[in-house]
């Protein structure tokens, strides 16, 4: 790591110079300070967790790709006879309607979180980032849904949406408006689920963004104020751009949330009848109801491939920080 190398260079020079082999490589100098036992210890401390990470996360990720080219049913052993090439993908593409529903719903999920919930969260953060009586209280309130499990969020919103017993239809009835079947109607249940998801997402973004706002150098704002910019102008022309690293994190976090969307849809109706998502299609096809391992894995590969976009964006940012 560059940072470590730079820091060590001046003060380490004297310390290591006397030791044999210290001149070998600047890069490895720190490591060569270690005794043999230490090296073994260190390899174990990093190696065992790394091994488990590879076996239980990266192994399955690669296995998903391999399974996606087979018609394995998960019961008998897998062999070359199970190889079907791109068959699962062709079926997904052309003759499995829920797949495109799922893709559409995941895109909508992302769009609503990104372009509705995220801006609201940022807006709340901007409002609360000032001397304001009760700012702490408001922050606590908006953040509360974030500490709840998404499954609990789904359940709580079921209580609001229920046609007979829910808050919303009860209010509608009070105004003599016909109650709506929010969760049963496949044309609207996705939007109902998205309200629940947004309710939680807003607070999450608010906290991330508020921390970013607090770390902005105040002299930038003063400079903008001296130039005659008002609050909104200062934000749009200065603060927003200074906060680019946080903005990236927020886009990444939101994309990942949208791709992982599962719990709310599953609690409502196991992700069917208007609530199909790539995630629920995977489990429904391959684990809960059918044994279509290969087919479900093809959906998993689609999900995996899309998720590489935000992951690569995030990793690029980290590498840049490591170098800089």
């Amino acid at each position, binding site marked *: *790591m560059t940072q*470590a*190398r730079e820091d060590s260079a001046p003060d*380490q020079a004297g310390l290591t110079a006397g030791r044999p082999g210290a001149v070998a490589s600047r890069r490895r100098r720190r*490591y060569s300070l*270690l005794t043999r036992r230490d090296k073994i*210890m*260190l390899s174990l*401390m*990093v190696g065992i*967790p*790394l091994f*488990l*990470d590879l*076996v*239980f*996360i990266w192994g*399955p990720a690669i296995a*998903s790709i391999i*399974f996606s080219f087979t018609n394995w049913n998960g019961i008998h052993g897998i062999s070359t006879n199970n190889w079907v090439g791109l068959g699962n993908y062709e079926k997904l593409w052309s003759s499995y309607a829920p797949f495109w529903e799922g893709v559409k719903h995941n895109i909508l999920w992302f769009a609503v979180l990104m372009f509705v919930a995220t801006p609201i969260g940022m807006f709340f953060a901007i409002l609360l980032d000032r*001397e304001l009586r*009760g700012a702490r209280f408001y922050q*606590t309130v908006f*953040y*509360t849904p974030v*500490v709840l*499990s998404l*499954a*609990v969020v789904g*359940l*709580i919103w*079921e*209580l*609001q949406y229920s046609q*007979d*017993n829910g*808050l919303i239809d*009860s*209010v509608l*009835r009070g105004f003599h408006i016909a109650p709506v079947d929010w969760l049963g109607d496949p044309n609207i249940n996705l939007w109902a689920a998205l309200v629940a998801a947004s309710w939680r997402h807003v607070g999450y973004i608010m*906290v991330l963004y508020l921390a*970013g706002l607090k770390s902005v150098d105040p002299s930038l704002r*003063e400079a903008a104020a001296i130039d005659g910019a*008002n*609050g909104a102008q200062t934000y749009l022309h200065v603060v927003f751009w200074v906060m680019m690293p946080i903005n990236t994190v927020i886009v990444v976090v939101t994309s*990942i949330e949208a*791709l992982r969307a599962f719990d709310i849809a599953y*609690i409502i109706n196991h992700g069917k009848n208007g609530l199909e998502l790539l995630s629920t299609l995977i489990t429904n096809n*391959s684990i809960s109801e059918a044994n279509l*391992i290969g087919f*479900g894995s093809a959906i*998993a*590969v689609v*999900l995996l491939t899309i*998720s590489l976009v935000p*992951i690569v964006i995030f*990793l690029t940012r*980290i*590498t840049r920080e*490591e170098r800089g």
Partner: protein
Amino acid sequence: MTATTTIVPKATAATRKRRNWGRVGLHVFLATMAVIWLMPIAWAVYTAFRTFGDTTLNGYFSLPSSLTLQNFFDAWTQGELLRNYIQTLAIVVPGVAITLLVASMVAFGVVKFSWRFNIVVLMLFVAGNLLPQQAIIVPLYHLYLALPVPAPLSDNGGLYDQIFGLLLIHVVFQTGFCVFVLSNYMKTLSKELTEAGQVDGASIFRIWWSIILPLCRPALAALATLEFTFIYNDFFWGLLLIKSGDRRPITSALNNLQGQFFTNYNLLAACSVLVAIPTIVVYILLQKQFIRGLTLGSTKG
């Protein structure tokens, strides 16, 4: 912005007045939003406190004829929630502790020593934590069925439907996030401390345990709070890697409870309140840790 007010001294009476009105408008807006935000929770709590007879007779949107704790007792006994809470406890406590220990070892190894694959290791952990769980669940499920596990850790010879198996995936998955946060934190610690330890002849393990870990206490406290809710709130792993309803941690058990109480919304509400309480209590008591944990992950230092 406060900066504006202090720098521009010639605020006329008119602009000051406008600013006051702006402040009032802001409070009205925020207060309205706060009410909207709390409404779903308030409604769930209210429903949980009402009797089934009361709500069927008068509708849910009505003043209560009586409030009762009965639903909580019924949910607790009929749902046999105690056993699920015990499962949760058996997962969350070791889960948080082991995750933090393991992650701090990895972060220590990756940050404090330069070797060839440093950055690759860090990336593998961080990226692994960002993958959607559903993208790896199918092979993982079959791995859990196939891997043999000896008796004290498993009573069916495998990882599937075992508390140990669930604990394992939580630790592996959450380690990624904690490695990321802790490695950022450790970079801010002075290099001299580790080196002084090395010069004094302390072993690597000792340097990690007696020098680095105590220095990381603030980050570890924040992470412990956050990880408690992450693991407690997990629905997905518990749902797919644990089959028996009585072995599922409480959050995943909601799936079964929902089926069981589907006809009685008061009981369902009581259930959701009972499941929400632990995280809400932790949040209210440790709000600062919570927010610091999240921001440590998104900003540096």
